[in-house]
């Protein structure tokens, strides 16, 4: 099957999936936390759009619901909560550029190639066209993971974690026509609860090490009480 034979709806889906991958890179390279939160919100919007397109293409009604849920949660509620947290933690002017941006980008590109290589046997099975999006979703997951590894700032790590979740959701939607509604609701509330817990933890971390740079945790030493 080639691109010419795909209906316009599915071509649009491929384009959106590619843009989701791009937002992952934007998120990875963003120095300012507020801008990174915005990039994450846009990724949520795009994932919701892909879900809505899958729903329109397949006629599965519960997918419309999960598209709306994704839009409400990942594009509006969670970014808003993060925004509020960042303001309360007085980090909205915080800037933390990557130390070696070119190297990090090359690593992320290598991850994209790796995820394509992993998915190749799946694609060769001549299945749904959306299998190609699986490679993109895997790339989004791995890029989120990379972001959690290279960022030392707790809020940025949470953003990486949340974008991993976006990648997983994209894979589920495009590959298997979405999860059952019960599972989806469960995951959505999990993410929400995780977000609230992260919010609490940010304050805890800052109180104990006076910074949100989790790298400093490496320097914690056990104080031996000599008395």
């Amino acid at each position, binding site marked *: 099957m*080639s691109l010419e034979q795909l209906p316009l709806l599915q*071509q649009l889906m491929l*384009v959106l*999936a590619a*843009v989701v991958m791009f937002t992952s890179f934007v998120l990875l390279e963003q120095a300012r936390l507020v801008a990174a939160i915005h990039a994450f919100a846009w990724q949520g919007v795009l994932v919701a759009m892909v879900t809505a397109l899958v729903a329109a293409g397949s006629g599965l009604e519960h997918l419309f619901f999960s598209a709306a849920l994704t839009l409400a949660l990942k594009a509006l509620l969670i970014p808003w909560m993060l925004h509020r947290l960042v303001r309360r933690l007085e980090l909205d002017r915080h800037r933390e550029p990557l130390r070696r941006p070119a190297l990090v*980008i090359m690593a992320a590109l290598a991850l*994209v190639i790796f995820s*394509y290589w992993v998915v190749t046997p799946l694609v060769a099975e001549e299945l749904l066209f959306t299998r*190609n999006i699986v*490679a993109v979703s895997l790339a989004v997951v791995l890029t989120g993971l990379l972001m959690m590894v290279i960022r030392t700032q707790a809020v940025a790590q949470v953003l990486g974690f949340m974008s991993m979740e976006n990648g997983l959701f994209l894979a589920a939607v495009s590959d298997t026509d979405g999860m059952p509604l019960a599972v989806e609701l469960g995951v959505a509330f999990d993410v929400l609860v995780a977000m609230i817990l992260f919010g609490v933890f940010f304050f805890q971390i800052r109180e104990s090490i006076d910074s949100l740079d989790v790298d400093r945790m490496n320097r914690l030493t056990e104080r031996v009480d000599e008395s």
Partner: protein
Amino acid sequence: MNAIDWEITLLQALLYAAAAPLLAGWIHKLKARLQNRRGASIWQPYRDLYKLFSKETRMAHTASIVFRAAPYIVFAATWLAAAAIPLLSTRLASAAMADVIAIAGLLALARFFLALAGMDVGTAFGGMGASREMFVSALAEPAMLVAVFTLTMTAHSTNLASVIDFNLQASSLLRPSYMFALAGLILVAVAETGRIPVDNPTTHLELTMIHEAMILEYSGRHLALMEWAAQLKLLLYGVLLCNVFFPWGIAVDTAPGALAGSLLAIVLKLLLLGVALAVSETVLAKMRLFRAPAFLNLALLLALLGLLSHVILEVGL
């Protein structure tokens, strides 16, 4: 290929040279209007060129033959590169040499002599401008080639005329790779033609100028040729972007009616491109020189993503 084809090919090359100052004038005028000035007429670049051609040419005592020859080489190489890009029709005699890698090579030749001329006289500004130009272009070139490879992988040819033909046939398709390649090429074009935010074409401020620093020592007809070559380069990138990514309207034969329609289409496309460029130059500020690598890394990233999304999303189907 018959005689008429050659005539039209020659006409197209002359049209490139004749239209280049007009595009520059149009962008100048638009920028002036956006800044609430009345601005010079859009014919002003022609008057400037005429004035420079009729002026005496002065040269520094230290200038060598390189300095004297560079304007002609720069202009000829740029003009040749431009003439190879299909402007009106994809079926002209020049289509045979419209190879993107050859065009990139011709532009590199022009840039090489521009930088040499900048260093030749031995002034501080010339050398500084030349080193900056090389710095920017060394970063821009890989991004441009990767973006171009995305196109050529899709169309299975490095010949621009065949690429345009291919895109014309499949122009209703949405290709994620083209979107990225277009974005990457726009950034490269901005850097290569010395526009804001990489270089400011109107400044003579010593700390920021790149292109102007190299041609600071030129006067008279030499300066006119250098300016003209810069305008041609802008037109070249404009036509490249318009005709490759938005090929609608370009003629696929050499019938007079089709050529006229094609001319109208490309003029409209370039007018729109001029508006976009003028708006972006008005809202953006020039970057520090050391931010340029980040800008061009973004171009490279976009181009690479285009390549990867072509392989992942379009071929593996």
